[in-house]
């Protein structure tokens, strides 16, 4: 207990977020659930999505096997970030941002896939406990004094926008079985997929109860030149600005010289 706390203290918040689900999995697998763990085995075709210079989105294959009967639910969750939602109003004929609500956190990505319609095999209590579905996402307003009706309408707008951007998706019936035991589903990540540490939870549900669960991490990160440039622009902002100036001047000068000699 104290050792874990000591480890946690040494970690930066980012790795801490990753560590908690990892530890949870370890305890789940190693503890009394040893028998249950065999009920479900799943893995990803890759645990890293690399956003390279030519990135146009990515598709991962999640596959696994179950023991006995049941339905499979897959939840893919991105890291959480604070968000502002703004509402436009027409003023003097022009649409202008007026009202806004700040949310303390919202997942940058959410995907739920299941082997058939969720209502058919998952009771409400389970949906709510495991936050299965868009309406169970935890998106609290930063300011608790904002009227509930307003928060609800802004939260709905947030979910609608994320859905339109392909970042919140539902795929009931997209987990397909090959025979009785093997299952697979594709998880699509659009070109605008945010970076960070994602968690993928896979549940085996039988008779309205979770009889098997597995959590796998997934890293989405920028790699290559684009990533270097992005990090440099944020970490050494002033130097980046100066280098941009030098590069542009150099390019302009080269252009002038090249065409003078033609």
């Amino acid at each position: 207990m104290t050792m874990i706390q000591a480890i946690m203290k040494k970690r930066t918040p980012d790795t801490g977020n990753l560590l908690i689900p990892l530890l949870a999995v370890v305890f789940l697998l190693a503890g009394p659930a040893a028998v249950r763990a065999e009920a479900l085995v799943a893995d990803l075709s890759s645990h890293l999505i690399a956003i390279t210079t030519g990135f146009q989105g990515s598709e991962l294959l999640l596959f696994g096997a179950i023991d006995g009967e049941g339905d499979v639910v897959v939840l893919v969750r991105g890291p959480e970030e604070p968000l502002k939602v703004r509402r436009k109003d027409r003023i003097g004929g022009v649409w202008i941002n007026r009202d806004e609500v700040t949310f303390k956190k919202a997942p940058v990505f959410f995907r739920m896939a299941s082997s058939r319609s969720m209502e058919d095999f998952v009771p409400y209590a389970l949906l709510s406990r495991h936050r299965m579905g868009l309406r169970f996402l935890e998106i609290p307003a930063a300011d608790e004094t904002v009227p509930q009706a307003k928060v609800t309408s802004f939260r709905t707008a947030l979910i609608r926008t994320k859905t339109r951007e392909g970042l919140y998706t539902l795929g009931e019936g997209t987990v397909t079985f090959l025979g009785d035991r093997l299952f697979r589903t594709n998880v699509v990540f659009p070109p605008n997929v945010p970076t960070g540490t994602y968690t993928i939870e896979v549940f085996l549900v039988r008779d309205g109860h979770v009889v098997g669960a597995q959590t796998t991490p997934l890293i989405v990160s920028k790699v290559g030149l684009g990533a270097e440039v992005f990090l440099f622009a944020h970490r050494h902002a002033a130097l980046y600005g100066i280098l941009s100036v030098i590069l542009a001047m150099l390019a302009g000068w080269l252009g002038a010289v090249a065409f003078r000699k033609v």
Partner: protein
Amino acid sequence: MSGFSLMQVYLPIAEISVNVFYLLGLGGLVGALSGLFGVGGGFLMTPFLIFTGIPPAVAVATEANQILGASVSGVLAYWRRSSVDFKMGFVLLAGGMVGSSFGVWLFSMLRGFGQIDLVISLAYVVFLSVIGALMLAESGRTMLLHRRREAAKRKLHKHIWLHGLPLKTRFRKSKLYISALLPLGVGFFVGLLAAIMGVGGGFVMVPAMIYLIGMPTSMVVGTSLFQIIFVTANVTILQAYYNQTVDVFLALLLLIGGVIGAQIGTRAGSFLRGEQLRGLLALVVLGVCARILFDLVVTPNDLFSLASSAVSAAGL
């Protein structure tokens, strides 16, 4: 299709993928226009980038960086011909530095309030409509004058009350003895536009230098380019520092297209009739203006929009 998609480039700061040839072509097209008409082209490039889906804040900051390169390319030619009034340039520049720094600060504030996109759009609507209308009227008048075979006579330098303000200074190269407050003020205003609209400001500065300051036309373009270089360099560094909105990939791609386009434009210019082309450019400017206005007025598909509320920590 797959061949095309291979040529997509992910812009690290704008955070979207755009086709390389599209960006080179856009740079080339606007470059050709600037070669043809002697305008900087920033006031067309920034709206086109926004139409492409580049976030307006990134489009504006990156355009400043691109104009910097294009102006370096242009000023060398004028320097060789010694048609740069450096003293006037430095006075304009002093105003420009203050104006552009104030502009970047204002930009950050407006961005925090969620109003920057609106201000950029409104500024464009105002300037593009005025410039487009003036150009259209001017080219129409010139076409009529051609028909009557009558050349308009204009006084080279008219003395107005603004020239009598305090801080009178002699500008030898421009053959002027006027108040330094006037070029300072012009510089300030143009610097502000550079920061907020992502333009070099040549389209405001050149007329202001001719009609307001009274400089000889031969000195105007070189001096204006000289000033634009330093103001856009200032804007680039400040935008990169405070807002992290300068996309160097995007700027370089547009520059490559622009440098080539400018050469084509300059050469094509000698074969084509000026006033008709100016009329055409005026129509392009008014068209872009109409499109921006339309986007402002038409009811959006969704009234709600998202913005990251994470505070941008400079130098983190």
